[in-house]
């Protein structure tokens, strides 16, 4: 039995499917990216008050602020 035609058909179909899937996936990625909620600039931290060296008086103040 000559396998060449079958093998070539498998290669052809799988390559074509991969390229199609790749293009569709890329389109899906772009679409998802567009629909993603945009980040707002005034987001506040949910958990802690941040320690910022320039605002703190001493190195130990980080612990107090986060309590």
């Amino acid at each position, binding site marked *: 039995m000559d396998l060449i035609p079958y093998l*070539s058909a498998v*290669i052809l179909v799988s*390559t074509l499917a991969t390229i199609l*899937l790749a293009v569709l996936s*890329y389109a899906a*990625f772009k679409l998802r*990216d567009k629909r993603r909620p945009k980040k707002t600039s005034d987001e506040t931290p949910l*958990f802690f008050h941040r320690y910022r060296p320039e605002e703190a008086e001493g190195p130990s103040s980080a612990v107090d602020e986060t309590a």
Partner: protein
Amino acid sequence: MQRLGIRYWIGFLGIFFSLIGLSVGLFELLKDARVDLPGSFVNISMLVLFGFLILLVLRYLSLLWFSFLNHLDDEDLPENEFPLVTILVPAYNEGAVIQGSIESLLHLDYPRYEVIVIDDGSSDDTYAKAAVYEGDHGRADVRVITKPNGGKSRALNAGIENANGKFVLCMDGDSALHPATLRRAVRHLIPSENVAAVAGSVKVLNRTNMLANLQALEYVEGLNMVRAAQGFFRLVNIIPGPIGLFRKSALDEIGGYDHDTFAEDCDLTLKLLTHGWQVKFEPESIAYTEAPESLLDLLKQRYRWTRGILQAIKKHKIRLLTPKDGVGVSFTLWYMIFEGILWPSLNVFAHVLFIFVAARYGTALPLVLWFAQLTVLDLAAALYCVVVEEESLSLVPYAICYRAFFALTVDVAKLFATIEELLALKMDWGKLERIGRI
């Protein structure tokens, strides 16, 4: 050399004889092949594909050869010559992984080092989770600083300003380091004052599905092998974000990271090279990182990488045409254009052309031979890379579908990203969601 030599020679001989066998086998097959090629279009197409094949084999052979030579460089330092190293961990909304990342840093095999976690204005609990580790941990001293959100490059620059070490290791908040990382990387910077940085080896931690395993193989074969080959010339063109050890004086000289590209690691490396510094590669300095587990996340990552690299090339384009200022840098930039633009385009084009010719003219035999030889080549290269990096042999079978499915899909995304970059379409960082497996 004595410790690693035999392993590398076995791997090298394996790939060498595989390629010889492949060439002989193909020659024998093609010698007797009877392919009726109707029309000059098909002949030209076959010629183009044959040229692509030759280019591919030559590329593989050069990379394998030079990466092998790079692996031969293996000298250690006396214990008292290890200076203080600062590890910088920039973190933005890395709450899921930051503690695992810091944990891995407390157990490094290195005499003394400091860890600075830079919280880049996270809106999750990254800072809180990192702050738990602040203080002295024996050989490691951990500090956590926070700043308003400004991007990874600004966070790293803030860390560099606060670093006390002679050498600075930059990593990602979602990565973990192998214990030998510092010890293996520092030995490149001590003896040679011209070496500014050492790129480490990145490995995929979350090998949970087929896509992650294909990326694990890609990191070993496609990224680390290329960096090893470039490392032989001391011209590594991208120090990966998850692991790069830098000479602090070199970073000070070039002004640290810029924030005008989406690939700050590539931009920084090119800045170092254009300032005359050298960049090496150390395969045993290892960072484990989370790879995208879904196809869309993978495409998002590759989209950003491609556009970022093109932006970095554009920034340094003047050096493309001025080889007299440094042949190595010019060559590196041209090579990046080849790898970043030409190669993915050529790969997609070759596949489309082959499909068209095979479907239109029924050239079944060349099609099968083409894929068979590529698969054998990929398997041989994967085997070599897996052996030299002491990776899991279970990665090797993934080479069978690596080129036909994974590389082709990624190359299509790269092609689109290149077109968008050439059209200067707007983009943003598009941060990946972390799963928290570290």
